């Protein structure tokens, strides 16, 4: 597992989405360039692992049917599955406007925005998804994760506890709850919930990051270093994990490793900013300073 917790939800959602696109793809096609033909072609390309080719076919379909929910939905699913976030987000942005009452699109948009790092917009999309379809653990977990990123720990905790009421074994929700508790300084609870998440999935990136932060605050720097190394192994793109690990090494007197992880942190931060810049250049959403 090399991805942050919430990418699990993208994968699940994307799978569901591709399934949903099938009926449209299975429809009759009388001409080679018809929308249905292109949808079928895209489906075959997805099955063959050719996501760029599938997206090309779907873009052709969109040219023919610019406002087709089926086509837009298929583009979003394929782009998400291929982790092509900008086309996924721009398409989902359109879908949430065309089909404003379909919770799935708001959810997927929220998750894609989280993945791209636009947490403010992600929170709003996920809140809308939750309003349209309450009592979904998947949505509540994603919302809690996004709120954690916005430091809205009390709100996050509410969403995550609700998610855990619905799915007590949800490891992502458990780890995110630990993150919220760590955020507000409730270290004992954070540690307990992170441990529970790690007992279910020992390489969980968020749970390991929380353990690292908790152990740093307890001044158990060697153990923090080990937890943070696990967090980075699970999610090498995390600036927070690299930053905390640099602090752990600094406290342990290992200046070389401390410097190395500051540099890694700065690199990951730069990459995240570039992703966000690309996204904002391609969309008309909110742009925090």
């Amino acid at each position, binding site marked *: 597992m090399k991805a942050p917790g919430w990418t699990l939800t993208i994968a699940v959602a994307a799978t569901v989405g591709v399934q949903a696109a099938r009926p449209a793809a299975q429809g009759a096609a009388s001409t080679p360039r018809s929308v249905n033909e292109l949808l079928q072609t895209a489906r075959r390309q997805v099955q063959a692992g050719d996501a760029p080719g599938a997206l090309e076919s779907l873009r052709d379909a969109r040219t023919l049917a610019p406002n087709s929910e089926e086509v837009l939905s298929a583009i979003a699913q394929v782009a998400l599955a291929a982790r092509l976030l900008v086309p996924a987000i721009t398409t989902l942005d359109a879908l949430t406007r065309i089909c404003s009452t379909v919770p799935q699109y708001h959810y997927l948009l929220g998750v894609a925005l989280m993945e791209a790092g636009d947490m403010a917009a992600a929170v*709003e999309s996920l809140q809308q998804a939750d309003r349209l379809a309450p009592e979904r653990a998947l949505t509540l977990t994603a919302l809690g994760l996004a709120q954690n990123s916005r430091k809205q720990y009390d709100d996050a905790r509410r969403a995550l506890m609700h998610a855990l009421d619905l799915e007590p074994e949800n490891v992502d929700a458990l780890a995110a709850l630990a993150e919220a508790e760590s955020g507000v300084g409730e270290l004992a609870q954070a540690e307990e919930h992170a441990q529970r998440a790690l007992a279910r999935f020992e390489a969980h990136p968020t749970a390991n990051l929380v353990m690292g932060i908790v152990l740093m605050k307890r001044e158990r720097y060697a153990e923090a270093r080990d937890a943070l190394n696990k967090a980075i192994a699970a999610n090498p793109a995390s600036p927070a994990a*690299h930053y905390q690990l640099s602090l752990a090494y600094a406290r342990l007197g290992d200046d070389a490793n401390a410097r190395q992880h500051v540099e890694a942190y700065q690199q990951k931060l730069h990459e995240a900013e570039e992703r966000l810049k690309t996204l904002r250049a391609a969309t008309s959403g909110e742009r*925090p300073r």
Partner: protein
Amino acid sequence: MTRAVVAPLGVLMLAAAMTRAASPPVLFRDITAEAGIAFQHHAAPEKKYIVESMAGGVALFDFDRDGLTDIYFVDSLTVDTANSPMAARSALYRNLGHGKFEDVTDRSGIGHPGWGMGVCAADVDDDGWDDLYVTALGRNRLYRNNHDGTFTDIAERAGVAGGGWSTGCGFADYDRDGRLDLFVSRYVKIDLDHLPQFGKDKTCEYRGIAVQCGPRGLAGESDFLFHNDGNGRFSEVAARAGVSDPNGYFGLGVAWFDYNDDGWPDLYVANDSTANFLYRNNGDGTFREIAFPAGVAVSEDGAEQGSMGVALGDYLNAGRLSLFVTNFSEEYNALYRHDGDHFTDVSFSSKTAAPSLPLVGWGTAFVDYDNDGLLDLMAVNGHVYPQLDKVRLGASAGYRQRKLLYHNRGNGTFDEVAAQFGPVMTDARVGRGLAAGDLDNDGGIDVVVNNLDGSPEVLHNELLDRGNWLLVKLTGPRGNTDAIGAVVKARTGAVTRTRVVQSGTSYLSQHDMRAHFGLGSASQVDSLEVRWPDGTTSKMVNVKANQIVAIKR
């Protein structure tokens, strides 16, 4: 008919009485107008350019040595008035006592420093009278105090005029040669003839609306360190000393303090939208930047924050100065607890972070407003985009914002209590500079705020149940007569409280340099110890509370 009239009046009187009964306790009373302070800060209403959003500082200093703290407000120009320096009028108010001030700006000659930004004070020429350094867009001013209520700008002659866009400043004797040196932070490279166009692209948008550009997307400025050569001249040595910021981070708040207690002043610089700096003094005229390993560069999760102001305070009475940094909205004000050889971000666990999330923070200070012996915290807020009021706000407050006041609970946590003290704390303003000090020498800490777009606030502390107090005025030896950098420790029983004499800090502002101690119920300070900047110490014992103590080196 009469009864019909009387009854409603009775109801009204009862209602009024109930209102009085329910009115909030008074902490600060806004005495600005009755004190005779008519200063108005000028800024372009639309703030189309970032240079119109970032002023202005305020200084509390006793320019005429009459024992009463005076006030200097910095005003700024706008793009439209940039070529008319008289369009902005900074103001010097002489404290007359009894809550009255007199505008002595015209006589003083310090009313027009150009496009003013910030201010810090020190006795630069070693004559026992405080001088004033004013940062600006363009040439900075060093106003030498002529002892007669007038000042003379000697910045060019002294070699400290700088240039570009200077913001924060602070004096300290970083090389311990007995003379005060000067650090000046700078912000963004700005060419008034080629300003980035308002809302020109997606880096100049916020929540989908056009706003001023920057600081991200604009080139930053390096910083200055002016070494005092001792002959009325300074040399710019930032690069040689290792504090020049060659990458051009967006420098704002400045705080000199000896974080590692080795006797050499270290330097913290709050940078907007980029990592903050902590320069550790190597003791040989150079510094090493250690903010990351020290844990004070970024937020706990590694986010570079839009840092503006800095406060220093020993809020745990642990003998160590912690750092409080005000930040942009949807970030959080960071409280970095000093843990000895490093700092720990305790912003959320101390309960200071959450209330700050919707607000853009600027001027700030650790102040013991109730004299209970524990340093509380105050910050003023206000956004940079007036356009914000026309759109949905999301998690951010509007353009004008309330203040934050954190009461220290004594266990490492704070309660945010601004709302308890009524409109003076909760009315929305566009706060920038904040300076704290005792304006009337009554032992209560007062606060002065410079607000963008209008009137400042002179907030007189009128809390009824304040504890005992001590105010310590230090006079240092030649070269540093204000004893800037001196550490004062007041012990009562088992509790030792620590203060440092600071030049600069907050947001581009200057606090009263006297060390203020709230003492709670203690009627005396058992031991009052000063560690002077040259490392020597002075000690007094059994100092009675509720007085101003002057200590000379």
